[in-house]
């Protein structure tokens, strides 16, 4: 298009390119001295420029901030760069455990094991090591068990802007809060809904 970016848009682009973590709009304001609205417009000008120019980069909104990311379609090529150094996909056990933490956080290890019906030690070890889950406190009950929550790294890895964007957040939250009777009813309604959809 031959469109040139203005100074603020170029600053935004440079900051996102250099930052090792998502930059919130507030942080961008601090760094550039520009106002929130001006920055939001600058961000979309950069987005447009990247898209129109057919670039391999795009701006994603992850973990409460803006982040420059490569187009996932080029993942195969880019991942060759990190061959042998890149952690694998999460195992089913780790994924399930992570899901339980994400929807019931902060929660104890005992809660995880009750929900999954199995020991979660090795899954939790992976999740802690990969920084998807962190210790966030202790429950004020006898024994003061540790509480676990998900991290910003978790949101980033799964492409989520914030926790509320987790799939089916309300539904799972309700299930967790319900007693047995209501739970059965809720599950019944859901399976009906699904039948209707299909």
């Amino acid at each position, binding site marked *: 298009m031959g469109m040139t970016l203005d100074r603020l848009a170029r600053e935004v682009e440079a900051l996102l390119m250099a930052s*090792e973590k998502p930059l919130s709009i507030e942080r961008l304001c601090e760094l550039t001295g520009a106002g929130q609205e001006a920055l939001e417009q600058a961000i979309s000008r950069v987005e447009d420029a990247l898209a129109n120019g057919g670039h391999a980069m795009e701006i994603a909104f992850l973990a409460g901030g803006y982040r420059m990311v490569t187009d996932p379609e080029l993942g195969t090529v880019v991942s060759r760069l990190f061959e042998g150094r890149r952690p694998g996909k999460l195992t089913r056990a780790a994924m399930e455990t992570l899901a339980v933490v994400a929807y019931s956080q902060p929660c104890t290890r005992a809660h995880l094991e009750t929900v999954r019906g199995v020991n979660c030690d090795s899954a939790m070890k992976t999740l802690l090591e990969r920084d998807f889950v962190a210790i966030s406190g202790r429950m004020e009950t006898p024994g003061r068990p540790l509480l676990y929550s998900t991290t910003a790294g978790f949101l980033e890895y799964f492409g989520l802007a914030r926790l509320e964007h987790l799939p089916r957040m309300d539904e799972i939250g309700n299930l967790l809060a319900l007693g047995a009777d209501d739970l059965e009813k809720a599950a019944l309604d859901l399976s009906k809904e699904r039948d209707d959809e299909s």
Partner: protein
Amino acid sequence: MRSDSSSRACRVMLSDFEGPLDLLLYLIRRDELDITLIQVSMVAGQYLAYIRDATELNLDVAGEYLVMAATLTRLKSRSLLPSRREGTDESDDPERALLRQLILYRAFKEVAADLRENEEVWRDAFSPPGERQRFTETAREFPDNQSGSLMDLLEALESLARKGEPAVPHMIERPVLSMAECMDIISRAMPPGAAGRFTDILGEKPDRRSVVSFFIAVLELVRRGWMNRTQDYPFSEIRLERTRQWA
């Protein structure tokens, strides 16, 4: 419908499941049962058959599967009893509690699958220059000026342990005097029939360790009845007297 007789080879292996709840959900789905309408005891038999097979094949069956097998056996036997009153609490209805667990677990299994889809896409989105750091094996830096987490501390500890420096030998010194040596000295200082003060045994300028050694030896002698001791009040002089039992 019952597949107890189906060949073992066709059966899905236990290791394919993420635990007893996962196996139960599989059995329910396979028989196209509605989780909200079933009695768990309807699939209990098949569950137990699975576990029995796995045990016969000498596979390592995790404890959780066996606990569930016990629960199901109990539920089955309950279901054979005349039906109980309706409207009991979840707390005294293990079947309802188990169903609740299954419904909840199924929901998490489903969202885990949703998250997997996110992973598939976003794993392939790389961002500069964090990825370079994230994938190197060099130690992760502390985020900004924030304090480290417990995990950071454990990692640091582990990396220290890995350094491979030979451990500093910890010398354990032999006590200055053994019990036998102490008794020997006391015996000489206090011949049969004699009496004296504890401090007499110690000699001149005793160090702390020999005081302790002698004191323990004296306690042992008193315990055996080879010595009598008297002390007027706490921390005062201890008077010792050799008994006849000390030959």
